[in-house]
């Protein structure tokens, strides 16, 4: 996959959308982040978040899914995350929130095969829930032909 050779700094992609169910939130929390505000409605309402909300790490992991699917649709194969230089959680993500992200190409180094993206994840009210900068490693260009990219807009199925 060498479509990324065509990427330009400043270019932006809209990812697909992803709806987070209460079950998704509880399952992730039970396995990775069993704190009351991610597990129990009552405790969550009394917390700083004001209601049962997803672990920040789940939101971050979902972001990687949205980005991965979007680049795949563009014919770009991610080989891994090198760094997240900075990331901020802005507002909680609640059950049934619909997330999508804007991925802006901040730098594209073809020699080192590194792609720096500025990413904003927002909910259905267009409020930004997560912002970050992320450096991705991209597969070396290959000469093998690729299938045509699919639509950039899609809904992700967990």
């Amino acid at each position: 996959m060498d479509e990324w050779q065509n990427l330009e700094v400043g270019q932006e992609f809209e990812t697909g959308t992803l709806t987070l169910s209460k079950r998704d939130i509880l399952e992730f929390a039970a396995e990775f982040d069993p704190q009351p505000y991610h597990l129990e409605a009552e405790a969550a309402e009394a917390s700083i978040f004001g209601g049962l909300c997803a672990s920040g790490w789940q939101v971050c992991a979902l972001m990687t899914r949205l980005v991965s699917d979007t680049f795949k649709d563009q014919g770009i194969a991610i080989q891994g995350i090198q760094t997240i230089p900075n990331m901020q959680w802005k507002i909680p993500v609640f059950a049934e929130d619909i997330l999508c992200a804007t991925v802006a190409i901040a730098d594209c180094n073809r020699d080192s095969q590194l792609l720096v993206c500025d990413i904003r994840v927002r909910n259905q009210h267009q409020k930004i829930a997560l912002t970050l900068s992320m450096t991705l490693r991209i597969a070396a260009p290959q000469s093998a032909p690729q299938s045509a990219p699919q639509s950039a807009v899609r809904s992700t199925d967990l």
Partner: protein
Amino acid sequence: MKNSEFIRSRWFEDIPVGEFHVFGSHSFTEKEIIEFGKKYSPETFHTSPEAAFDSEYRGLVAAELHLAAIWMKLMVDYMERFATGVQDGRRNGAGVSVRDMQWFKPVRPGHTITFTYEICEKLDRRVRDKWGIIRSRNEGFNQNNERVFSFEIDILAELAPTVKPTAER
């Protein structure tokens, strides 16, 4: 829980800069690496041992955010065991921001990662006059003592209750 009377949660003021702990270890299994990969990072080197063999990793590796999720799991365990007697979910740990998160080496099935943290700074900033912000440096090392993962995180810690000012007399 009766014991909770004797476990006082730590306030912001109680947490010393320089505190260092080796707070937990986790052995990654092939099954959990694939499960996490399928949900969150569906590149073949996270989801298929066979296809992963043809990737640059030459085998299955854990998704980057899987490391962060396991860090969180072990940190919650640790907070409950040692640092606080968290009862109400209000006092500890909501994350604000992350800096310099880096992955240095792949984590493969069977690898055991041990995590450390060090409190490196207490920020001056206050949130809603109720929370302070604690910055910690966190690292993960594999079974060969090679660093595989590191980052800094700012989390909220509740301020100790103060005697009401004289205006309320």
